[in-house]
């Protein structure tokens, strides 16, 4: 098979834009990055089969049909992306509701271990830290449930 350069370029740009957004901290942007990436991946899979007429027996003669297998795979992928989009949107909304923005924060536990490493302490120090009442950070801006 010879590669279709139009597809190649489109896949490249979709990946580039998608990854750029994925590295952001705003959940909405990350979600848009995911969608762009999925579009790019779908196109990438599509390239695995040849183009042609609709793969329907009786409509297109078999030798002119496009490859149906990548299409079946992409079809499931499209709908999965829909489910994932819905989930991430709900996540972004929930995050906004709880803390007033939809940004992905640094992992608090990882930061704590990094602080231990800076102070040259062992893992036992975490127990001491908890003992001082410096437990998990309280959730800020918790919206009370309306009656």
């Amino acid at each position, binding site marked *: 098979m010879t590669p279709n350069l139009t597809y190649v370029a489109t896949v490249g740009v979709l990946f580039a834009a998608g*990854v750029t957004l994925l*590295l952001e901290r705003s959940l909405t942007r990350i979600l848009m990055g995911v969608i762009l990436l999925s579009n790019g991946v779908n196109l990438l899979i599509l390239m695995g089969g040849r183009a042609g007429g609709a793969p329907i027996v009786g409509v297109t003669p078999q030798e002119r049909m496009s490859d*149906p297998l990548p299409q079946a795979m992409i079809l499931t992928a499209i709908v999965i992306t829909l489910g994932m989009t*819905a*989930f991430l949107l709900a996540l972004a909304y929930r995050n906004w509701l709880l803390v007033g923005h939809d940004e992905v924060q640094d992992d608090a536990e990882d930061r704590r271990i990094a602080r231990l490493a800076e102070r040259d302490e062992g893992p036992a120090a975490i127990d001491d830290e908890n003992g001082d009442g410096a437990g998990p950070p309280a959730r800020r801006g918790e919206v009370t*449930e309306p009656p």
Partner: protein
Amino acid sequence: MSAPDLVLGAQGALLLVVVHALAAVAAPLLVRLLGRRALYALAAAPFAALAWALAHTGQIHAGTAVAGTYPWVPRLGLEFAVHVGALGWLMVVLVGGIGALVLAYSARYFAPDEDGLGRFAAVFVAFAGAMLGLVICDNLLVLYVFWELTTVFSYLLIGHDPARRANRVGAMQALLVTTLGGLAMLAGFIMLGQRAGTYQWSQIAQMPPGGGYLTVALLLILAGALSKSAIFPFSFWLPAAMAAPTPVSAYLHAAAMVKAGVFLAALMTPAFGELNVWRAVLLTAGTITMLLGGWAALRQHDAKLLLAYGTVSQLGLLMAVFGAGSRDAALAGAAMLLAHALFKAALFLVVGIVDRSAGTRDLRELSGLGRAAPWLAAVAALAAASMAGVPPMAGFVGKEAAFEALLHGSGVDRVVLAGLVLGSALTVAYALRLLWGLFAGKPGVIATRPRRAGWAFVGPAALLAVAGPVVGVSAPAVGGMLAGYADAVPGTGAPYRLALWHGFTPALGLSLLALAAGSAVYLLAGRLAGRVRLPIDGARVYDRVMEGVGRLAVEVTGATQRGSLPFYLGVILLALVVLPGGMMLADRPWLRPWRAWDTPVQAVAAAGVIIAAIFAARALRRLTAMILVGVTGYGIAVLFVLHGAPDLALTQFLVETVTLVMFVLVLRRLPAKFSRRPIRAGRRGRVAIGVAVGAVAAGMAYAATSARQAPPISVAFPELSVSYGGGGNIVNVTLVDIRAWDTMGEISVLVAAATGVASLIFRGAGALRRRRGSPPAARASGTGTWLITAPDPGTRPQSIILQVVARLLFHTIVLFSVYLLLSGHNAPGGGFAAGLVCGLALTVRYLAGDRAELNAAAPIDAGAVLGTGLFVSVGTGAVAMLLGGQVLQSALLDFHLPVLGHVHLVTSVFFDIGVYLIVVGLVLDILRSLGAEMDRQQEPADDVSTKEAV
């Protein structure tokens, strides 16, 4: 098979392990019903093991092992192979007999309202079962499994009171040390087994491998044995394990578990006893341990710790004796094994009684207990005499046999003998120290007034103590039993026989020397104590290592896990660029031929996608970004059309539309612009990574497509699709038939995602009812409007045109979706597209009215729709299986109906109906969550703000 055959022999032994397991499971319930008396009932399990062993006494004495093999995982060489010879028989007697006695003792040791008694009983019985399995099994891998089970149960028993730090630390030390050794041992077992071609010890012992290979394997195995038996340099875990309740110390850390290492050494001595590496390790480690342990025991004030160090010392003695590797030494070792289990368990039980009745076990605080509790003192004296090797005790018989065996050995053996005599002197000294400390009246110390200990409490200890002289007196008979094991070890000269009296031999002289020297050491020890410290302290090394591991983990984690998720992602992506990207460049794919497009129209659509994607990445407003992302989606749909994929195009158009609606629903709640990043410096880095990944992806697309040479497997699909799937639309048939399993997985993901969405949005009281979507009764009066419900004009602007369109088109669209669903087998459509169309119809109703209108249009729980869909899909697959076909296999049915005429039905349509329902359920769930519920959550806040404005 008759009943006696079942409970006797190898089957009976396996059955006993099962009985222990069942008893362990039942233990918590029994304890809840009967309180601590349940322990008496549970003692029946180890007692049955003792009875089993005694029933086979004749057979073992005749020299016939109890053996049998039952396959478990044949391909791994795993089988339940039972092989109980004289050594195994001895161990079963000890494990069963002492287990039953200690359980009976525990029924008095623990308070009636002891916390966690049910768990203790369960773990204790389970331990007895694991120990039993360990000593009866012949397969090394199965032995390893039981070995580690005893470690785990020991961990749980030491940690009986997890609130105390000493228990937690002790349990963890014992677990780590013995597990580490156990892993080494497993490696050694595998080396042995792979070389021998079998894991059955009875067969490996016949033809042991040789050379350096064997040396490595043996060293690994010995690491396991030495760590399990607390031999130097692993000794430190045993004293720390004394945090456990005393019955645990008596059983696990004196009689049973710590003997596992000795048992393993004894088991392998007949095969390896003459190898230098075997002798060197066991003799050296054993002798050092005996001396260090004995010396440390002299310096303890806690009676339990004294016994613990004494146990360490005696285990060293046992290892050294078995390590000598001669027939007589093996006999002596077996006798010592028996004697030690009896006297050490008895002594631990006595210390437990003292602890419970006097309230302390500190030797400095007890005084005059001998007068207050003479029977207890007598029991202790009997056991301690056996420990010290006073005739006519079992300990004397065993120790004299050991001296005798080493006297006739090589020069090395003589050196070891000197060490053991010295060690025995120390044993005498700490035995005296224990007795004096526990029971003597001390000047200046207030006399202890103990509570009376009942016969049921003292009885088990007394039985064990009395067994000492009984075994000693009947030494010839015991020796006859144990000779069955010892005779397997090659020896020279006339075989030694166990007896109380051999005449005036050098060995007797050594025994007397040890007794005399020990008494002297005891008298002098008061002055020596505290002056000499051990040069190497294993516990300190352990602490250092643990601290170092913890520090290393913190440093590594701190250096690699800085907490920033984009950073982690960036690292992963860079790896993608460098490794697969580099490999791709090395392949130089650009040398292969290419073409610009299939049709030039593709380039137009692609240009739209590219431009939209670039601007989407740069957009600052959420709405702009959303629309641009949508444009790329529609552009891709156009590409699908041009590619010849109508199903894909249809689905992509529909999904893109639903996505847009979702975005609008959520984004109306979020700020219009993306939050300004405080640091914009990272932007260039992100773009750079993005461009690099894009380049690699494009390169892969190019390389993968141009590298393809084989014809696609889908050339067979058209034929398969018609003949097996019964449909012309190959993509749809692929989804519901050829690759239906994939679809099954996918719709499960959809159900999970929908549930996740709902659980993120629906919160608080009444969430479940609201998710079901029962319409509010008050607003359900639709007079003079186009919709069923009258939207509240205050909440959102009205569009009469939208309402008219929604009203007119809704049923038509739903009907069209059903058409798409049913025709999908032969034309573009199918469950996914049809479900999305129906979902869009619902969306229009919701947008035109509000959530009450949505509830009126679909008065049903989205979860129920999802569940029904999954049930229908899975059910279709299951029915095919029940009818004798494969899961998800389709059947073609052609029949005639009165009105419709000829009907061609493919059963996979039911699968597709399930898919349809799930997609409808997903969209409905999204509308209820991101639409209706978010509306509701906003409303009270709006009300408050308007009121405040007024």
